[in-house]
């Protein structure tokens, strides 16, 4: 089964996209973050919580003896009871519901991005768990549409925009007055590879050339200018962190 899912992951990457992370590590007991479980769970409970339950399930003697299914073991409650006052239920956008996509889609116009109200898009009021204030989470779907919104742990993650389906890019974004300043590849749900981010940068010609991109989340200090990165790939000249702070007003504050 792992071989099959490994192949699926590789094929998705060769097609220029990425599936939700985790399907090729089904039996990996070291990994707590089972986002593939979050996707198939009818309640879309948080992957971290389901991952812990999965680990307990594969070791549970009673479950093994009675061949109890994981969903029976995990229970039907939508609330996992991990955090008081927090339901940890990811608000997936159902396939037949377009409202979330409509309100979170960002559209290109004259080299700038605009929100659903046709106002220049700005991430100043948003924040993400990893990068803090001034950042939003970003996803590009298979049709090339871009979605961005605030990151809320246990509620709004990268998987909500496409209901956990494959994407061409995912990460974080800083946008000031409609101008994209910085893009990173930070997404635990999709873990986009640097090659995938390069592919996306080349397929999204409206992405401004002077914006900065961090295509490899494991190499935090290595950023490139999008235009240079698009042309020269990983041979592009890296940009230092000083340039990053001077480039982004919000980060300089």
């Amino acid at each position, binding site marked *: *089964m792992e071989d*099959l*899912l490994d192949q699926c992951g590789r094929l998705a990457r060769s*097609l220029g996209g990425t599936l939700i992370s985790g399907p090729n590590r089904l039996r990996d007991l070291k990994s707590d973050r089972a986002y593939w479980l979050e*996707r198939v769970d009818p309640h879309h409970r948080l992957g971290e919580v389901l991952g812990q339950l999965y680990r307990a399930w594969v070791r549970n003697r009673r479950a093994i003896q009675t061949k109890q299914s994981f969903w029976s073991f995990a229970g039907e409650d939508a609330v996992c009871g991990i955090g008081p006052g927090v339901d940890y239920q990811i608000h997936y956008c159902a396939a037949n519901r377009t409202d979330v996509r409509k309100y979170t889609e960002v559209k290109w116009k004259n080299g700038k991005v605009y929100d659903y109200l046709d106002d220049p898009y700005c991430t100043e009021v948003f924040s993400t768990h990893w990068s803090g204030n001034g950042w939003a989470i970003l996803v590009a779907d298979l049709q090339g549409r871009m979605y961005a919104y605030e990151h809320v742990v246990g509620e709004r993650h990268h998987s909500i925009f496409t209901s956990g389906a*494959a994407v061409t890019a995912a990460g974080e974004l800083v946008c000031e007055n409609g101008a994209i300043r910085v893009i990173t590849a930070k997404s635990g749900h999709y873990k986009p590879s640097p090659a995938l981010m390069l592919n996306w940068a080349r397929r999204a010609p409206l992405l401004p050339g002077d914006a900065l991109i961090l295509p490899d989340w494991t190499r935090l200090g290595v950023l490139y200018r999008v235009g240079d990165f698009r042309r020269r790939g990983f041979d592009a000249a890296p940009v230092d962190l000083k340039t990053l702070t001077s480039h982004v007003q919000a980060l300089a504050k």
Partner: protein
Amino acid sequence: MTAIATQNLARAELSTASKNAILRKLTRQVALYNALDRIRSLPAQRFHALDDIMKTASAYVTSKPPQPKPKTGSFGRLWKIFSTSAAASPAALAEP
């Protein structure tokens, strides 16, 4: 070549003759994906097919916990022979 290699999948009991309904469904979905590959379909269709495979595989691995493998070493074989033979019966073990 972007088709799913099926040579190694037989070990996972992936065949249309499998006893498990989820595995039979998975086998059909793999065949469907490979057919899409042959007719050079749109990438979106292929992604959709890959996504279906992932969901069915997830349904399979969550259907029951991994069962412990039977002992296959020399001791395991010896134990199997001993435990199933008449020598292991209470009557044989009882002193005459």
